[in-house]
């Protein structure tokens, strides 16, 4: 591999690590660690394996066919089918973007003491300005690289000298040691935070923005496998620090301020600021991706010209779509909806709509019109089939568990 390509892969891997966490991943991992110590690590591992396969497929589809996942679903399944996952995605995007904006606002509240609602509009303006003036590469690389600060969770977990035997046992799937409804609710929420529909849409759109082709398939595999794999270490770090700092004191996670303690444990007072900065940067990056993703899916569903790398005048409908998305979601924070509750609720809702989003992948990834000789092999098809089965189970249990254990 040439030096330039190696650098490109390295950048892709680093941005995947830095961009892995978002408000959903932090909240669900912290809740998991605080409530069940290391017992839910296996869920993060399973979710990560699923994500690696899904992201690789989304990238392969875009690189070979030059069509995004949203394009392909509409083209193959028709408007009558596609209107339903699209509408569901709008609802989820609206809530998740609100939660991510809330994450940034909470970070600022932790740093300044000013209530999060007051930060909603300034944060929304900052997100919008970055999208308006920035290019796709700038947004992906700068914000995600800044997100490497979240490696503090991995460092924190190591500094606290975890009981490695217990950690290892946590990777073995097990039933609930206590509070089964809450245990499985968090498990489903972790999966909903990891296997997010927006990943398929955003990653495939990003591959087109970056101009990937068949020559980039190896890079795609590396970024998906290595990037997402190492990225999941950060989420495991959140879970482990919560397990060692919050669980021993019986602290349950119902505010972000409690999650800040996970870094105070290993790093003292600096940990508080480190947490706030990590939360702010990671959620800001997620806001960018979520807002752009709304623009992507509307544009691709209706066949508009689109692209974050285009100037706003070159893609007016696309830019208006993400502008309206940011404005609408900001209202959720302006009126003072609790960001943490909104996060956990939207993760459960994501789980409900996953089957609609993931099932078409099995058809599309075997379509030679799109993928030529790069269609799925038996392993990828098997994994997608398993993921589809898993999403159906999650969809059935998510809302009942929300009531029983949420």
């Amino acid at each position, binding site marked *: 591999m040439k030096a330039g390509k190696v650098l490109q892969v390295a950048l892709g891997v680093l941005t995947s690590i830095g961009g892995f966490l978002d408000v959903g991943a932090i909240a669900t991992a912290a809740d998991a660690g605080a409530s069940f110590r290391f017992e839910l690590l296996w869920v993060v591992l399973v979710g990560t394996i699923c994500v690696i396969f899904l992201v690789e497929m989304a990238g392969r589809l875009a690189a070979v066919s030059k069509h995004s996942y949203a394009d392909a679903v509409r083209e193959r399944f028709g408007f009558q089918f596609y209107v339903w996952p699209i509408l569901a995605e709008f609802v989820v995007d609206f809530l998740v973007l609100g939660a991510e904006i809330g994450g940034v606002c909470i970070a600022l509240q932790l740093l300044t003491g000013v209530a999060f609602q007051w930060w909603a509009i300034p944060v929304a303006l900052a997100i919008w300005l970055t999208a*308006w003036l920035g290019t796709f590469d700038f947004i992906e690389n700068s914000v995600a690289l800044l997100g490497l600060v979240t490696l503090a969770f991995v460092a924190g977990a190591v500094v606290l000298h975890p009981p490695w035997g217990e950690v290892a046992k946590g990777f073995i799937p097990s039933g609930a040691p206590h509070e089964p409804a809450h245990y499985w609710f968090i498990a489903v929420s972790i999966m909903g935070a990891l296997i997010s529909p927006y990943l398929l849409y955003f990653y495939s759109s990003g591959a087109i923005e970056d101009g990937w082709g068949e020559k980039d398939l190896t890079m795609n595999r590396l970024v998906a496998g290595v990037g997402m794999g190492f990225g999941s270490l950060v989420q495991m770090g959140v879970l482990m620090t919560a397990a060692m700092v919050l669980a021993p004191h019986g602290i349950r996670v119902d505010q972000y301020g409690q999650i800040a303690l996970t870094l105070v444990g290993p790093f003292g007072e600096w940990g508080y600021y480190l947490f706030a900065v990590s939360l702010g940067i990671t959620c800001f990056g997620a806001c960018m991706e979520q807002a752009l993703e709304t623009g992507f899916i509307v544009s691709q569903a209706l066949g508009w010209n689109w692209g974050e790398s285009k100037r706003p005048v070159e893609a007016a409908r696309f830019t208006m779509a993400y502008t309206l998305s940011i404005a609408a979601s900001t209202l959720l924070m302006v009126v003072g909806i609790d960001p943490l509750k909104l996060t956990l609720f939207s993760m459960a809702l994501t789980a409900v709509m996953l089957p609609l989003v993931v099932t078409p992948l099995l058809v599309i990834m075997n379509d030679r019109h799109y993928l030529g000789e790069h269609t799925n092999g038996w392993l990828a098809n098997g994994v997608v089939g398993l993921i589809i089965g898993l999403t159906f189970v999650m969809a059935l249990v998510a809302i009942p568990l929300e009531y029983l254990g949420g």
Partner: protein
Amino acid sequence: MADDFPEPPENGTRLRLVRDVLDSQMVDRKQCQSGKVDGIVAELRDDGRLVITAIENGLPEAVRRVSPRVGDWIAALGRRWGVRKGEVYRIPFARVRNTGIDVRIDLDAAATPLLAWERWLREHVVRRIPGAG
């Protein structure tokens, strides 16, 4: 016709309309994404043949496939408030070529109602905001 617009296929060529035309991405002479194929119109001739005459683009037509009533309602909203006045735009099928996944159309979309909303938003909203380019 543009120089690089594909020649018509040979007589006897077969086309699967749902797989290869309906909902496909339209790309114009300038390689501009010009919307999706929302409808296909055919004429029943006196000799009993059903001949395809045009493809259509327009949100009301797409939505009518899900619910005719909601589609009509969207068309009514468009007539009242829309830039395209709720109209569905037709492209003669002679100007259409299936090229695998996409559908090429032999026209400049910027000069048609296909990009009416794009033009309106660009001139009335986007250009007025600093940094629009």
